[in-house]
């Protein structure tokens, strides 16, 4: 932990870790920096990973995370606890920003930097020890992540929220802003698409690895 982080950690010592999100938010509205720091540390990881899974880019994930908490500090009073949890509120803001970025990025051609960015992200997932097993697992994860990223956005967010973030259907519906049945049907369809894509990828790999007999004309 850096010196700055240690200093920030010391600042949050005054608040108990069991303080609820809602209480923290009230303190944030009143200008309590410790409360904001605790809330940030509690929720930034989920927001960042959601943006990362949705976009496949660390840069976009960082931008979206920053935007989410900037919006929170400026418009904390707009949060209505009757409409859902604070986490769902933050995920909803992140979702809007990510979808906007995805829509903007559709206008541009993907450059090598983005591909390297994605590779770097996957490289960070590699665990040490048992190189062969790690390699196989990493390939599987890479394939799966790539398959998730090429899903349509409304299927992708269902997979990311319900599978990768282990949200319930109700929570995911709150984030997306749709009915629970819609989330179920989207998740069902998204899983079916993923199964097809993963199977197709495996078939491609297995067919390329097969030794094809070639006739010798010598």
């Amino acid at each position, binding site marked *: 932990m850096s010196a700055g*982080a240690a200093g920030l950690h010391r600042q949050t010592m005054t608040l108990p870790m069991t303080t609820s999100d809602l209480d923290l938010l009230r303190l944030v509205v009143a200008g309590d920096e410790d409360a904001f720091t605790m809330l940030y540390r509690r929720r930034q990881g989920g927001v960042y990973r959601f943006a990362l899974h949705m976009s496949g880019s660390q840069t976009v994930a960082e931008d979206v995370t920053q935007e989410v908490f900037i919006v929170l500090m400026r418009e904390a009073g707009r949060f209505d606890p009757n409409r859902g949890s604070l986490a769902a509120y933050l995920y909803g803001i992140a979702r809007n920003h990510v979808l906007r970025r995805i829509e903007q990025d559709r206008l541009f051609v993907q450059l090598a930097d983005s591909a390297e960015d994605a590779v770097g992200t996957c490289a960070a997932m590699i665990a040490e020890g048992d190189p062969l097993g790690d390699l196989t697992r990493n390939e599987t994860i890479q394939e799966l992540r790539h398959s998730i990223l090429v899903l349509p956005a409304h299927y992708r967010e269902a997979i990311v929220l319900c599978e990768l973030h282990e949200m319930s259907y109700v929570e995911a519906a709150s984030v997306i802003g749709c009915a629970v049945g819609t989330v179920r049907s989207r998740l069902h369809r998204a899983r079916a698409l993923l199964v097809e894509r993963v199977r197709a990828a495996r078939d491609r790999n297995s067919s390329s690895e097969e030794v094809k007999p070639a006739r010798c004309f010598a």
Partner: protein
Amino acid sequence: MNCHDLEGMINDLARGQMMDASLRQQALSHAESCACCGMRLAAERSLTTGLRAVAAATAAEQAPMLLETAVLAAFREQHSAKPAPAFVTARFAARRWAYVAVGAAAVAALVMLLSLSASRSRDAQPPVERKAEGTDNAVPVPPRELLAAPRPSPSPAKDDQKLAVIRTPSPVKGTPGRIRNAASQSKRAADKFDESGSDAEIATDFIRLMNRDSLPQSDSGQVVRVELPRSALISYGLPMNMERADERIKADVIVGNDGLARAIRFVR
């Protein structure tokens, strides 16, 4: 349990979601007996395993510490001086300038409207008006309307009958000698008319009442303020607002020592 029923619950089954135990057992039994559903369930379970591996692999991913520092700095900055956000300030400033511009436009429109109505009300007044410095020493000022419109003489007179008295001290001495052509004074009179205040009296040119030839010699005279019916304007060739015909109008009459009226002007 058939294949269709299993398809409806295969996601929950593969994800290990809570469900009725007997229903779950029936689904698993069907998947064991049906090769197609068995493969389908195996694929779904494999996918669930893969997705959990992805979630586990990325569970440690967090935003960089620099981001936290930047966000907290932004929070500190916002709550230190409590300023409005930059975009809000800019938007409000732009809106404030818009308010100023609209207000200025409204004031300009109001001024134009007032000036227009004032000019129209001036048009409705008798066209020949002039500021009078007093009843005793008037400076005849021919208005611009008078110069443009011909003014018929009540008697068969010549062109030089439309004369103006430059100064008419009381008693008036040598009045005929001080009568000049109105046209020669038009510019100066118009300027004075413009400079006149709203409280001052406005008077027309003096209009000769007798021919120069028949005018007896008189070195002095007096200016007498009289009231006449507004219809008298018509007899001197001046326009009259018929709606105000019942009103009376003031006039100054130059009376010579012989008791004969030499000239008249109308005063407002």
